[in-house]
């Protein structure tokens, strides 16, 4: 089991969800986050007062999947979230030691 965590542009969330649903992913956790990478921040101007906003709003999604699905998940997220512009985001994959479905007590692959 792996957990795939991706930081994406907020307006790409729906496309990413559609892409993941199409390859058989049944669940997804979404968090609104802020951060910066190579895109850095942007400037906001209020009546001439300029502010450098260094943390930009992003969406973090987390998907837990069986090992054999990881490649397709990465492919689906990449395809859906890419604009080609700086700031498209990143994907991180890590291993899961254990998974439990709270309602039934099922574990690991059965719980995903």
């Amino acid at each position, binding site marked *: 089991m792996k957990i795939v965590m991706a930081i994406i542009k907020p307006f790409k969330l729906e496309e990413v969800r559609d892409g993941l649903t199409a390859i058989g992913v049944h669940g997804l956790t979404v968090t609104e986050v802020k951060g910066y990478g190579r895109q850095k921040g942007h400037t906001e101007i*209020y*009546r001439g007062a300029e*502010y450098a906003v260094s943390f930009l709003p992003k969406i973090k999604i987390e998907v837990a999947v069986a090992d054999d699905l990881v490649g397709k998940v990465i492919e689906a997220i990449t395809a859906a979230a890419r604009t080609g512009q700086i700031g498209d985001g990143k994907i991180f994959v890590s291993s899961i030691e254990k998974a439990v479905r709270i309602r039934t007590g099922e574990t690991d692959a059965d719980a995903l």
Partner: protein
Amino acid sequence: MNFKTLSRAGLVGLALAGVASAALAQTPAAPVPNKGDVAFMMSSTVLVLLMTIPGLALFYGGLVRSKNMLSVLTQVFAITCVVALLWVFYGYSLAFTNGGGLNDFVGGFSKAFLRGVDATTVAATFSNGVVIPELVYICFQMTFACITPALIVGAFAERMKFSALLLFMVLWVTFIYFPMAHMVWYWGGPDAVGGAAKALAEAGADGKAAAQAALDAVNADAGMLFKWGALDFAGGTVVHINAGIAGLVGCILIGKRIGFGKELMAPHSLTMTLIGGALLWVGWFGFNAGSNLEANGTAALAMMNTFVATAAAAVAWLFTEWAVKGKPSMLGMVSGAVAGLVAVTPAAGFAGPMGSIILGLIAGTVCFFFCSTVKNALGYDDSLDVFGVHCVGGIIGAIGTGVLVNTALGGAGIPDYSSKPGELVTAAYEFGPAVMAQVKAVLFTLVFSGVGSAIIYKIVDVVIGLRVTTDQEREGLDIAEHGERAYHD
């Protein structure tokens, strides 16, 4: 503009003189308020209240950080309530009665606690023989007294102690606003001037001197700036320059907000600011058209001017900012609208619509450069640009009024009540004296309110202390001062 109220006895006297030639007119007919005028003035009055709460409160509230939202709303609402009470206790009397030896500067206490005022007493308008109930006039002027100190709040938002603010405002309206209103707006009214002028015209050779003295006395019974010939239809000097300079002095004396220029101080809700700004515009029709005190063509002119000057200033700020800063911002557009409203305030019933558009275009452009460039260069922290919008816009409007009142430029002309007694005619326009009267009024207001406000800030600083502690300022005034939060997420 304004006047004093006429006693019923005085009106009876005037009416008697007017009908003496009519055979059957033995019964004196004092002017009776017209129901249309009364309804118009009541509507205008509540529109001006709408400008303050929630209009100004939301306009300012949206511009501060969310931790200070309630402090701004509370300050504006509390000022409105406190000043409304002071107005009927002694404010109206200080502004709109004869002040004896000090009459050039301030009125007296003869109508303190509304003594002598009831549902039958009337106030003059700008037309001969037209009056409105004095109570309506008092309510209408009350809303001006309430909004003017509330405007100042924006200059030192996010750092002033609430108790200090209340004490400051009580002193400020007492020693600055009420006298300013008296100096600019107190006069005898058209019937008093017309009646005395008529008496002079009809006086025989032996009565000429006495009649002339009587007319001089009527003309002398007015505030100092009014006698200078300064024109201020709805409050360019009394309201906007007055509040704007008091704000500038305040933000300098209180000091910059912690983290000013280093930390993010972006407005927390420009949605609120748009709602507030739009309510200001709507309410401003009561402010400007209502300042005509009767529902007639001049009120319609003021309404038209309040539409087009505002639109012109909003467009001017929007496009200037787009050209200079790269993007057309909503905040810029709304700020431009307010600058236009401020600039057209003294001119509303004097300038023509095309003149008002020019006024708006100038105000929108100049105020933009002031708020975006000049303020940054000077480095003071006028949180919400009270000076850059209200004082600068007010000065443009006040001086512009002296130019645009000229009938040759489409203006309404300078009113003259004595050349043809009983009628309102237009006095000859002379550029130099007209503009100089405005410049003098502007300079006087800047000095009087600037110095007076500085003294009051110092007194409050000694008695209470102007500013909250560093920790309280960091935590936000909502929790620190009022024990509540605007938003729960």
